[in-house]
């Protein structure tokens, strides 16, 4: 019986988009099927999470290194049932476990792409004007834009690859693209809210560094966007 390829080889093939490589992750059964993508999310998410918090303080870097993988895993877990149901409803031959693994795998790929940019962002964290300087807000805004670009890039890669995996996994299904976009919408809507609950991330210069805000479940991301829009239009 042929030996299964090492995880580094499979991760390499996953990045390359080698046809059929995602099958070994999605179809696989047993504890390792979940443990491997979760491990990738934990390690790579922690690297990028540290780069999010490092500008504000070392303590926040540590907190974000814990919270970013938690955000990915919580989003995947909370949406697992709904993602699986929609896939079935739109005719994809995916079990709930397989759809969960497909979502986890796309999060793992996004975390991997983000982690690759972590050294560059950490360098900027440590060399741009610090949170106590008079130019703190310009650094804050610049780094904020950089994080938005990095996350958009990683998200785009993950979505495009997920579409390819689903098309390979369910070649007869006609709605693979629709399922990909639907999963993206569900993950974005829920992910935005969970990230709101897990604040602070970036560390507003004058606010204190803490793991979670005093009442993390006070308000929603969408209420806050609504309030901001209302204030801006008054």
């Amino acid at each position, binding site marked *: 019986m042929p030996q299964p390829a090492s995880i580094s080889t499979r991760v*390499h093939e996953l*990045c*390359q*988009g080698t*046809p059929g490589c995602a099958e070994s992750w999605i179809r696989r059964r047993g504890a390792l099927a979940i443990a491997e993508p979760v491990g990738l999310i934990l390690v790579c998410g922690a690297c990028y999470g540290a780069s999010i918090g490092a500008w504000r303080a070392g303590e926040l870097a540590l907190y974000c290194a814990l919270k970013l993988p938690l955000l990915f895993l919580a989003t995947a877990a909370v949406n697992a049932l709904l993602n699986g149901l929609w896939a079935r409803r739109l005719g994809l031959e995916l079990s709930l476990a397989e759809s969960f693994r497909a979502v986890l795998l796309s999060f793992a790929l996004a975390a*991997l*792409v983000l*982690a*690759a*940019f*972590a*050294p*560059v962002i*950490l*360098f*900027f964290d440590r*060399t*741009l*004007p*610090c949170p106590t*300087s008079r*130019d703190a807000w*310009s*650094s804050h805004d*610049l780094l904020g834009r950089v994080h938005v670009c990095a996350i958009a890039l990683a998200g*785009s*890669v993950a979505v*495009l690859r997920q579409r390819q995996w689903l098309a390979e996994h369910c070649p007869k299904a006609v709605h693979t693209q629709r399922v990909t976009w639907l999963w993206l919408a569900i993950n974005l809507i829920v992910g935005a809210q969970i990230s709101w609950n897990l604040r602070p991330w970036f560390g507003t210069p004058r606010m204190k560094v803490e793991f979670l805000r005093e009442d993390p479940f006070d308000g929603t991301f969408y209420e806050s966007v609504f309030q901001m829009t209302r204030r801006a239009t008054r």
Partner: protein
Amino acid sequence: MSQTIESVPSGDAAALPLPAEEEELPGSNLVDLLLRSPRALLGRFDGPDAPKILVRLAAVALAGHLVYGFVVASFAGDMQWWAAPLKILFGITLSGAICFPSLYILVCLSGARARGPQVAGMLLSLLALSAVFLAGFAPIAWVFSQSSNLVSFIGPVHLLVWFISLFASVHMLFLGMKHWRARGTGWVGMWILVLVVTALQMATVLRPIVGPSTRLLETERQFFLQHWLRTIQSDVKSEE
């Protein structure tokens, strides 16, 4: 998202076969290979002597930057004779090192059949070729260095020289992508921007590199655009 180079059939082979006319390498001169037969050089990263070539490329990259570092130092003299070349060497090495993971992942995402040594080869080829160009520009840059007294003039001259050298060398990345059968080059094109921005910030962190100073490093943290603006403003004030 990514611009396609050409469609290539998928297969087990790691890379495209070398063109027949490039199988016979024109001597073992690495600089000559970089300039005249870059594809033949890239082909060597698939062979057993890849580590040896990587070391030699690193040496060429460091030597070229060192030569240019002395030209940069000739503007201010004194402590900069040793500080500027060392800072340039340290800066380009660190910039390359921190940008390497993102290059590796973007090369993989483009579908290139390249592993770590091959991606390192692409990066070192880029840096080595740009170092060769920098060394070539050295006499011209020296003339300007000796003729001007303004940091806000000579700084942009050195930047322009670096930009030209870098952009004359980026084809090493694109040839590497083609050699290792990438589906497109858009991601790597974007990475060049990451390298440029990182190197510019590195130069700001390691300042002063061009102007005279009694201190090795400035402690104030600044974004490179902010630093340039302040340098120009202070030169304008001193001229007035």
